[in-house]
Structure formats: structure tokens, C-alpha cells
């Protein structure tokens, strides 16, 4: 048994109720006792509860995640090898040639953002940035995927305002541009907003650092902000029982300090540039000190001893439970080469940051924590990491799928659109917040700092110029996931998340390189939810395998649900692509009259899961649109070849809102252009499906009039359906001929509805 804890409050007996409060099942608690050979102390109970939580241990999802490919088949010695694989470290790293690499990952901060949207989102950004620079990379871009309930509710407005302001506050201050992302507004996210933040950084191969504690006797340094009681209000242990401090002093949500993080980035990169100084480094994220100490020790196959009295603390009287579980932000753990302590201290002195020697690397394989001269925790590190339980949850196909998957517009007798209906429908779709311009959001993000953003937010994919020493390279990045498709067909919806992301990259002129994913689902103990999770992962893995896009890292967020039910299954995907040459960079906007518009991929007729069905008919049903992976590949390869041949003026993939929305969006660029299209030649049993159906595998391109014939012929040869559907004009109108008759809209009117929708919804009286 360990001696009594210096804080008498921590010396109470551990009851079954206390174990349950810590989120541990009775047999999990038994395992804890087995690992220790005795009862745990309260501090140790807190440590196990956090390391064995879903968030840290992935206990309900680990078996599923093994299905992802983590290496790139098509990599060569000179390009594309995965250098740090998913699951090994804080972020994965992939080679981009010439001795350079990129590190990137996406992570969620959903539940904190529901409680406190500003700080929840801000600290989410802070956390993912740390995961990147802890690998030795300089953060160069951020993106995010956001999901909210419908925008007409005051709660959603408050969440949107707070989340966007929080992301802006943190990202802008820290000096990393937010260059893209995606946002959906859907009832299923009511009360359970999703905030997934991605960061990407650049580094040379020789700058890669790992979160490993090795080298017997090496000092363990704590750098960054001081530790307070952040995050403990949400702890399992009721605040009254924890200490004499009142509950109001203990914030349930962490507060971020981007200025501190900026200093930390610079100090850490400076420190890591000193050869041989840094043996290992890890950021303190969830359950800060606990997670970083045992994970680094575990990875290094070593042990670690920590002296809590030496941990910089900004509040008085913190006991060992509080110090170990605090979620204070902007802190890193650094394993330093013995004898070189002065070097790390002087770097942090320059930046006016704490650098405290708080422990030592041992060879015992145990994590030993002391406070006030007493051992308060003594745990084998492997028990906390590899020893975490793993479960195979039960999956059961949800009953609703029996009904939704067989729904068709014909079967349901859904009346088709007439011309007046079609006129109104396009306006309604373009001004729906999910489809409408997100400018209100991204103009609050600094998307230009680091002077390398080539394609600004608003196009299919963000494109950034990486400055790599004296040379430069161009990458594209896109985030995607249509949760509605995943609800209606989890496996296929996940396939679509991937193929849509890949189409977006190819439209920008990029070859897909690697991906990261954030799985956002409900309670995994409900078999229907677990079925969705399992099927979505199966779909993602299948697409990754087919397109040779390895997963380099990711995150899982479960329990996104309220008493009314879970969110739509939302496996957010973000793929990074590589652009060979600057001249290949393509945007989605038509720039001048006289261009020919070509629809690639045909016009199959489906309405399942479409925004049209939801917005105009109020239905969320049907099967997700069909997906043909080989056809997607043919389309991607063909489009990329045409782009590289210089034949594509603009390219835009078809997604929410189908053909008419995509065509409209191509006209909303910097230039005032219209379009005249003739769809009467396309086989289309239904007008609504032709105009607004969300069939996959389709892209609209604008080509020079002289090139149209060649492009159509090349498409035929490549096995890609291609139809010339019209031209861009200078008459300010969007006119469309259909079998039923003519449709026409003034572009400025469509554009106004699209541009002003979210801005109008978010307007506050008296402010401009």
C-alpha cells in the first residue's frame, strides 16, 4: 500500500459509487487492482479513469480502426512514404519529396464547445496545433469541420457565433491561417455541435521528433503555462469532495491563451533545432500531465518519476489529483539529454516561459509520482496504455433503414417539379445555410497570414504554397462529410465522404496523398449507433484502400447525443493532395463569357438524401446516392490529365444541391458572368432529379470553345461520360433549357440570396 496522501481529502476509501463516477466498470476496476496488486489511491484512480476513458484509450473503437491502410502503396523512395504512421505518435507524417515532409491531423472538441462555444473551439484549435509542433513541424495551416443545428434557432446562432469567434481568436493570434473547411446545419446536430479542427505543419525528415522517454537518468522538463485547476469542474470527482476550494473556482472548460501558444511554438521549434538536445517531446492535452508522462514512458519502454512540487502551479494548495488531471493549456513535456539542462532553460528564458525540471527517466517501467516527499502514485506504465481494455461492441442494423433504403420518389408518388417550382427551388437551395456562402464565417478567420495561401476559402479546396527552405511546393486540402448520406447508408455515406474529398482535390489540380479522419458518432453501447460506426469505418477503409490514400492519423468522438437521439453519423474526412506545378492550380469559378461548360459523369436520376428532398419536401429518406469507385477513379485520372494539359479553365465537383447549385456556384466568382445551358439532351425521367439530384462521380468544367471537342473525345476514350451542356455568357443571366421548358434567373439575384443568407441570419442590431 502507498502511504497516505499529503492532502487528507484524498485519503477517503474508494467506494463502488466513486469508481462509477470515474467512468470505470466494476470489472475494469478489478483489472486496475490486478495491475497494481493492491487498491489504487484516489490519485491513481483518477489516472486510470482518464487513461482508460474512450477519448484516450479508444477502447470501443480500436479493433475497428485496424482496418485502415496506414502505408502508401504507390510511394517511391523519393516521394510519398509514410514516415510516422497513424497511432504511433501525436500526428502522422508523410514525405513530400526533397527531404521534406508534412505532419497533419484532425481532432474534435465537441462536448466542450457545446458547453462554452468560444473557449471550447479555441482550445480545440490550440490542442491540434500542439499535436503538430510536438512532432517537430512548424504549423502552416488550419481547417475545420463544423456541424450545427438549424440556423433559425437562437441556440444555434449563439453556438455558431461563439465557435467561429473562438477558432478565429486562437488561430489568428497564433498566426496560423485558417484556409478552409466545411459547415453543415442540420437538425440532427441540435444540442450536439461538432467542432473538428485540423492542423498541418511542415518539417524536414531530420526534424521529426517523437513522444518517447528514453535514456536512463535523462531529465524530464515541463515547459509552457503554469498549471491551474482547469477542466476539473467536469471531473468525475464531485468538487465539494475534492478540496476546500469552492466549485465556482474550478472551471469546467479550459481557457486557451493563444499568445502563450505562439511563444511555445517558437521556443519549442528553437529548442528542437539544437542537435541532440531534445530526446522526446509530447504536448499535454487531455488529462495533461498524466497522459504525457505515461505515454512517453510507454513508447520509450522506460519508466518515469515526477516530482509534483516542481510543477509550476498558478493556484495554491493543489493536491496530486488536481495536478495530475488538470487540463491547463499550452504545456509540453520534454525529455532532455542529460547534462544539457542549461541549454533548454536558456531558450525558454528568452521567450519568458516556464521550463521546470520535474522528473527523470528511469528503467523501472513504472510511473512514480511524488508530492511533498510522499509517493502518491506508482503504476506500471504499460497498464495505462497497452493494458487498457478493448471491447467488441455489438452492432445491429437500425430498423429505420428498412424504410428509408427502399424509398424512391416514384414509389412514394413524389410529384415532380414544374417550371415555377424549379425556379423557386434553386433560390431556396442556394440560400439554405448548408449550401449558402460561408463568407460570414471565413472572413473572421485570418486566412492569409504566412503569405502562402494561393486559393482562398470559397473554392472546392484550399491551396497553400509551402515554403520549404529555399524551395516551394503546393498542396491542396479539403474537408468533407455529408452526415445525411451516412445516416441513410453508413457504408456508402463514408465512401462518398472520401470520393467527394478526392474530387475536390482533383478539381484543384492535386493528386491525393493521405488523409486524416474524425469519427463523430453517438453512444457506442447502443448497437444501432455501433452499426453506423462500424459500417462507416468499413466504407472509409475501403475507399482509402482503393485509392491508395493512407490514414496518417485521426480522432474518435463518441457519445454525441442527447435524450432525443444521436447525431447523424459523421465521419469527417480531410485529404491532403499534392500539386505538381503551380500552373495546374485550378479554381471553381468561370472567369469570362464564351467558355464551354462540360458535365462529366452523366446525369443519373436519384433524389435520396438530397438537400432538395429535405428543403423542398421536408424529407430525409431514400438510399444514399450510388457510388462506383472505378468510375470515380477514371473521372479523377481523366480530369487531372486535362488540367495538366492546360485544357481546364475552371472545375467544380457536384455535391449538395446537384447540378444547378454547382453551375450557379461557378458563376459566383470575382467576375460577373452568366451561363446558358441546355439540358434537354440529357436522359432525365424527372426534372427534380436532373436539376438537384446528388448523384456522385460528377464534375462541371469550363473549357475554351476550341478545346471542347478534344475534351469530349478524350473523355470518351477514358470511359468518362461527358456532355457539353452550354456556355458562359455576359448577359448576367443563368438560363437553362429543359425538356419541360426554359428556366432563367438573374445571376445577381441568386448570388445575393447565396451571399447574404448567413450574414442576415447572424446580424446583430446596431452593429455593422
Amino acid at each position: 500500500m502507498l502511504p497516505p496522501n499529503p492532502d487528507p481529502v484524498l485519503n477517503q476509501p474508494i467506494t463502488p459509487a466513486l469508481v462509477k463516477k470515474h467512468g470505470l466498470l466494476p470489472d475494469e476496476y478489478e483489472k486496475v487492482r490486478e495491475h497494481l496488486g493492491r487498491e489504487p489511491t484516489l490519485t491513481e484512480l483518477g489516472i486510470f479513469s482518464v487513461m482508460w476513458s474512450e477519448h484516450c484509450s479508444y477502447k470501443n473503437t480500436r479493433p475497428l480502426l485496424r482496418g485502415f491502410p496506414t502505408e502508401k502503396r504507390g510511394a517511391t523512395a523519393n516521394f510519398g512514404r509514410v514516415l510516422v504512421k497513424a497511432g504511433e505518435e501525436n500526428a502522422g507524417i508523410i514525405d513530400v519529396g526533397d527531404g521534406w515532409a508534412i505532419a497533419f491531423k484532425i481532432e474534435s472538441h465537441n462536448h466542450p464547445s457545446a458547453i462554452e462555444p468560444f473557449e471550447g473551439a479555441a482550445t480545440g484549435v490550440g490542442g491540434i496545433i500542439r499535436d503538430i509542433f510536438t512532432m517537430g513541424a512548424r504549423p502552416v495551416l488550419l481547417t475545420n469541420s463544423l456541424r450545427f443545428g438549424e440556423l433559425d434557432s437562437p441556440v444555434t446562432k449563439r453556438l455558431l457565433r461563439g465557435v467561429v469567434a473562438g477558432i478565429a481568436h486562437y488561430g489568428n493570434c497564433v498566426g496560423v491561417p485558417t484556409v478552409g473547411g466545411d459547415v453543415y446545419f442540420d437538425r440532427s446536430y441540435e444540442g450536439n455541435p461538432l467542432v473538428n479542427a485540423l492542423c498541418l505543419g511542415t518539417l524536414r525528415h531530420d526534424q521529426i521528433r517523437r513522444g518517447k522517454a528514453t535514456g536512463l537518468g535523462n531529465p524530464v522538463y515541463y515547459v509552457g503555462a503554469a498549471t491551474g485547476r482547469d477542466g476539473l469542474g467536469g471531473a468525475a470527482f464531485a468538487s465539494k469532495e475534492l478540496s476546500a476550494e469552492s466549485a465556482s473556482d474550478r472551471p469546467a472548460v479550459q481557457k486557451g491563451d493563444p499568445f502563450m501558444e505562439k511563444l511555445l511554438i517558437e521556443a519549442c521549434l528553437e529548442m528542437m533545432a539544437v542537435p541532440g538536445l531534445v530526446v522526446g517531446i509530447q504536448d499535454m492535452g487531455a488529462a495533461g500531465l498524466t497522459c504525457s508522462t505515461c505515454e512517453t514512458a510507454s513508447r520509450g519502454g522506460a519508466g518515469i518519476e515526477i516530482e509534483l512540487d516542481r510543477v509550476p502551479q498558478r493556484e495554491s494548495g493543489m493536491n496530486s489529483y488536481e495536478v495530475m488531471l488538470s487540463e491547463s493549456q499550452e504545456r509540453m513535456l520534454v525529455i532532455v539529454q542529460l547534462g544539457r539542462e542549461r541549454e533548454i532553460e536558456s531558450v525558454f528564458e528568452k521567450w519568458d516561459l516556464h521550463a521546470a525540471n520535474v522528473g527523470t527517466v528511469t528503467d523501472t517501467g513504472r510511473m512514480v509520482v511524488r508530492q511533498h516527499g510522499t509517493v502518491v502514485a506508482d503504476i506500471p506504465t504499460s497498464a495505462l496504455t497497452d493494458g487498457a481494455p478493448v471491447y467488441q461492441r455489438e452492432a445491429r442494423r437500425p430498423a429505420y433503414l428498412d424504410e428509408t433504403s427502399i424509398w424512391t420518389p416514384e414509389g412514394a408518388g413524389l410529384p415532380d417539379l414544374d417550371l415555377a417550382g424549379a425556379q423557386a427551388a434553386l433560390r431556396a437551395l442556394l440560400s439554405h445555410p448548408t449550401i449558402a456562402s460561408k463568407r460570414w464565417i471565413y472572413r473572421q478567420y485570418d486566412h492569409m497570414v504566412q503569405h502562402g495561401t494561393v486559393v482562398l476559402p470559397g473554392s472546392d479546396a484550399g491551396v497553400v504554397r509551402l515554403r520549404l527552405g529555399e524551395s516551394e511546393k503546393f498542396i491542396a486540402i479539403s474537408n468533407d462529410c455529408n452526415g445525411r448520406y451516412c445516416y441513410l447508408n453508413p457504408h456508402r455515406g463514408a465512401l462518398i465522404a472520401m470520393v467527394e474529398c478526392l474530387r475536390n482535390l482533383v478539381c484543384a489540380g492535386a493528386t491525393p496523398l493521405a488523409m486524416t479522419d474524425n469519427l463523430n458518432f453517438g453512444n457506442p453501447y447502443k448497437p444501432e449507433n455501433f452499426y453506423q460506426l462500424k459500417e462507416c469505418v468499413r466504407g472509409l477503409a475501403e475507399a482509402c484502400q482503393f485509392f491508395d490514400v493512407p490514414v496518417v492519423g485521426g480522432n474518435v468522438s463518441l457519445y454525441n447525443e442527447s435524450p432525443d437521439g444521436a447525431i447523424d453519423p459523421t465521419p469527417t474526412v480531410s485529404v491532403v493532395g499534392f500539386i505538381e506545378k503551380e500552373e495546374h492550380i485550378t479554381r471553381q469559378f468561370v472567369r469570362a463569357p464564351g467558355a464551354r461548360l462540360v458535365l462529366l459523369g452523366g446525369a443519373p436520376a436519384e433524389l435520396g438524401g438530397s438537400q432538395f428532398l429535405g428543403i423542398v419536401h421536408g424529407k430525409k429518406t431514400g438510399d444514399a446516392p450510388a457510388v462506383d469507385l472505378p468510375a470515380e477513379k477514371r473521372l479523377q485520372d481523366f480530369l487531372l490529365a486535362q488540367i495538366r494539359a492546360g485544357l481546364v479553365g475552371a472545375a467544380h465537383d457536384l455535391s449538395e444541391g446537384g447540378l444547378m447549385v454547382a453551375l450557379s456556384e461557378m458563376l459566383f466568382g470575382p467576375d460577373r458572368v452568366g451561363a446558358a445551358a441546355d439540358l434537354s439532351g440529357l436522359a432525365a425521367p424527372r426534372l427534380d432529379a436532373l436539376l438537384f439530384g446528388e448523384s456522385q462521380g460528377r464534375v462541371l468544367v469550363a473549357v475554351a470553345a476550341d478545346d471542347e471537342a478534344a475534351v469530349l473525345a478524350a473523355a470518351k476514350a477514358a470511359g468518362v461520360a461527358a456532355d457539353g451542356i452550354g456556355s458562359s455568357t455576359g448577359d448576367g443571366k443563368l438560363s437553362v433549357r429543359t425538356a419541360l421548358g426554359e428556366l432563367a434567373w438573374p445571376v445577381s439575384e441568386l448570388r445575393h440570396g447565396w451571399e447574404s443568407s448567413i450574414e442576415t441570419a447572424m446580424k446583430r442590431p446596431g452593429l455593422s
Partner: protein
Amino acid sequence: MNIAVLQFPGSNCDQDAYHLFATGLGVPTRYVWHKERSLGETDLVVIPGGFAYGDYLRCGAIARFSPIMGAVHEYAGKGGLVFGICNGFQILCEAGLLPGALIRNRSLEYRCLTCDLAVEDAGPVFNTAALGRRIRLPIGHGEGNYRIDAAGRASLETNRQVLLRYVENPNGSQGDIAGVRNEEGNVFGMMPHPDRAFERFHPSRDGLAVVRTILSARFPKMIRRSA
């Protein structure tokens, strides 16, 4: 010629400012850490954008007391060229080297977008002959709302100290003022970012003309090169 780019804790556009001069103009450029007390020999001191000291208390309020600022005051007092961009402009105003103050955008929101700017005839260096009537530069700020009292404003206008005005005011600045110079004509400040308007892929490359124009105060030949 050499350019000195100051670095404060929290400056995050220092690399952008560096590359504007080093890569865009191709002139020798170096960083000066805020704890230094001497600038060394320099032809232009650039105070870059960012969030020096986290913008705590007020933007630039703490940075103006950094050790290096003593040297900057002395250098400016002797007629040396100083150029503050965004946070740099805020720091120069707090330091009293430029008139006025910058407060929160009227919308209370950060704004990142490219602006059309009307060039003012602000003396022998910065004028429409050098830059044309209009230029385009990106802004990226939450506190770019320029304020000055009535007397100060009258003085600015009479002495032609306003450099640029927003064509569509994005932040509520009085008089649509986007940038000013001091009365003596050696200290310049603006909220828009020339350091985001020089690469071939930037929406505008007018940043190069802007810095050439400012440098022409010291190197008259700069202005004749094509942008």
C-alpha cells in the same frame, strides 16, 4: 541597403514582412529581437503585424515599452525611416510616433479580406504619382478602427498626413483612414498588409509598389522600377 524587421513576442507576420523585402524586393533584410537595445545600421525599420504581447491591455500598449523601442524613438527622431504594418501601426500609435489610436472594429468581428484603397497625395514621397489613384491590399485585423480627436484630425488633413483611405470602410475608421504618416514624413503606418500583396499568386501585388514608395524617401531611384 538593409532592412530591419522587429520581432516582439507574439509578432506573427514577421516572416511575411521579412519575405516582402528579402524575396519580393530582393534586398538584404534581418530580424531584430525586441530585447536588443540597438538597431544597428539600417535604412528602414519595419514593425510587422501580429499580436505582440497577445494584444493584452491594448494592442501595442506593452510592446511600446520593449527595450528596442528606445532605439526606435532615437532613430525616428533623427529622421530614420520607420514603417508599421497592422500591429506595427498600432504599436507606433501607442508609442506616440504616429497620431491617433486604433480600437475594435465597429462590427466587433475580425475581418480578413482584400480592400480597394484610395491613394492620397500625402507629400513628396507617398502620392498618386508614385502609386496611382487606387491600390488593393488585404487586411486582417480585429482592431483597425482608426480614431483621433477633432483637432488631431484637422491637423492630419491640413498636413496631408493621410496615406490611404478605404473605398468601402471595413472597420469604422474615422475618415475611412487606413494609414497615416507623421508630420515630418519619416514614419509611416497602415493597417492593410503589403506583406500579403507581393507574391505572384496573391490577389494583388501592390504591396511591392507601396514599400518601394516608402523606401524612395531614402532611395529616390527605387520608385522608377516597374512593379
